[in-house]
């Protein structure tokens, strides 16, 4: 019913979308090679300001991912064991009902010097002067963790739900304590979810723009905000292009080890 010609025709519209994607990546690399060249990269990478931006991007992305994994795992475990899982899951994904701009702005209202948190702390007499969190990298970290936590929870939850529950029961029956059973049975079996979720969060937080712009301000920039500044405030498209290529490389370098780990964990679980 489907010959090769017909198959090609069915695939053609999606093929066009793939072409549009390839064109934008190829165009980016091409215009960086022809208009800025290697010289621009040397200039950017020897600029201490840019190196600080690069370093900040890496540590914020790694810290966001680690925090999402550490917070997301217990939450996913709770969801996996709870009889009211669907209700809790709805709460976990509820942030997706609002645009990321507004979600992030919710934190501006919460964390500002006269925001909800500072006002409450002062009213309770716990602090005298407002704690300055907004427009620091800490605010960016809080915002990114909030934005990306649902992705991590869902990735871990799905690998917990796939586990054969009898394996845990066997662990307990054979005399393992709760902690031992968790460490030797549940955790290893759910690692693909943790690693998969981590690579997603790492990638998205390295390339974030809106959250660092609104919560970090323009002083403590990340690569995404630096690109935004180059385009809209400095009007230097060559530099923006080179920064975009640097971001691409940073993202791939950060995620590559996780992808390798994921393949390895999968192989081991399938072999076992």
């Amino acid at each position, binding site marked *: 019913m*489907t010959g090769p010609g017909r198959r090609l025709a*069915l*695939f*053609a*519209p*999606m093929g*066009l*979308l*793939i072409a*549009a*994607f390839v*064109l934008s*990546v190829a*165009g*980016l690399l091409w215009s960086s090679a022809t208009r800025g060249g290697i010289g621009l990269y040397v200039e950017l990478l020897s600029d201490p300001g840019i190196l600080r931006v690069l370093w900040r991007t890496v540590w914020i992305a790694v810290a966001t991912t680690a925090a999402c994994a550490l*917070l997301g795992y*217990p*939450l996913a*475990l*709770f969801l996996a*064991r709870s009889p009211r899982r669907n209700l*809790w899951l709805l*709460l*976990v994904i509820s942030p997706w*009902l*609002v*645009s990321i*701009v*507004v*979600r992030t*702005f*919710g*934190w501006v*209202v*919460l964390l500002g010097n006269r925001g*909800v948190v500072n006002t409450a702390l002062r009213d309770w007499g716990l602090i005298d002067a407002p704690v300055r969190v907004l427009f620091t990298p800490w605010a960016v970290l809080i915002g990114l963790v*909030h934005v990306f936590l*649902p992705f991590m929870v869902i*990735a871990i939850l*799905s690998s917990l*739900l*796939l586990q054969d529950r009898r394996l845990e029961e066997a662990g*307990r029956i054979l005399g393992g304590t*709760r902690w031992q059973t968790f460490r030797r049975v549940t955790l290893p079996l759910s690692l693909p979810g943790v690693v*998969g979720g981590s690579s997603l969060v790492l990638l998205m937080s*390295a*390339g*974030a*723009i*809106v959250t660092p712009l609104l919560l970090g301000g323009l002083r403590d920039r990340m*690569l*995404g905000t630096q*690109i935004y500044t180059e*385009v809209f405030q400095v009007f230097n498209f060559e530099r*923006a*292009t080179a920064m*975009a290529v640097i*971001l*691409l490389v940073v*993202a791939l370098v950060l995620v590559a080890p996780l992808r390798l780990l994921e393949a390895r964990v999968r192989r081991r679980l399938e072999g076992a």
Partner: protein
Amino acid sequence: MRTGFPTRALAALLLVLLPAPLVIVIGSSFSPRAVLGFPPPGFSWRWYVEFLGTPSWLVAFGISAALALVSAVLTTLASIGAALALRRAPARLRGIAETAILAPLLFPHAALAIGFLGWLGMAGLGGSFAGMLIAHLVLCAPFAYRPVAVSLAQIDSSLPEAATILGAEPGQAFRRVVLPLLRPGIAASLLFGFIISFDEVTVSMFLVGPEFTTLPVAIYARLNDSADPVVAAISSILILLTAGLVLLMDRLVGLRIFVDIEEDGRHPSA
């Protein structure tokens, strides 16, 4: 086996914090004062009235809704075509094609935005609806493809065969047997396409023009100058709209497909 107390306490805290911005946004949208704050010092519909009475907000809303609708329909149609084309393709070929379809997920959006800005500008599509639509189609395609592909894989291939044996034309077997069974996947595809496009801001903020903007970018621009509660009012309307779409989907085809998509992602070989 139940989880221990520390796990439950942490989970409870996170389950309160995750929806917190929603509560704050909805709460502060009813503020009678011009400063965004929570809890609101009183109650008024003032900011809802302002939104509905400001043409530029309504135009941005209309553009975003049109963009999301067209993106959702076109990426879903392209996904149905691609899923059908790849269903009986050799495993290797299918693997390559699916990697290409899902690739935009693996690229940081800030970098993609600069790529789009470059070639769309050269093609004369900078700051236009068509240029924005092309970018949105590319960004929505991976999300639209998976539900349809998962749904198609669940259909027992003997069903259309049975229809053919019973005398149905190939087109009839597709329309009367395959298409109805694909309904949950198609609905999820449309929903994902719509929400992803409607909320997209990272790439869109680079592609708007002086006379053309989308709602999330307009909201961002407004929040950057002043934090008045009209933004909270718009967001509350959007929350209602999205929640309505999700509920509608639940009533029409159920939400089971979302779990299936995740499980499929864990077992790409299955």
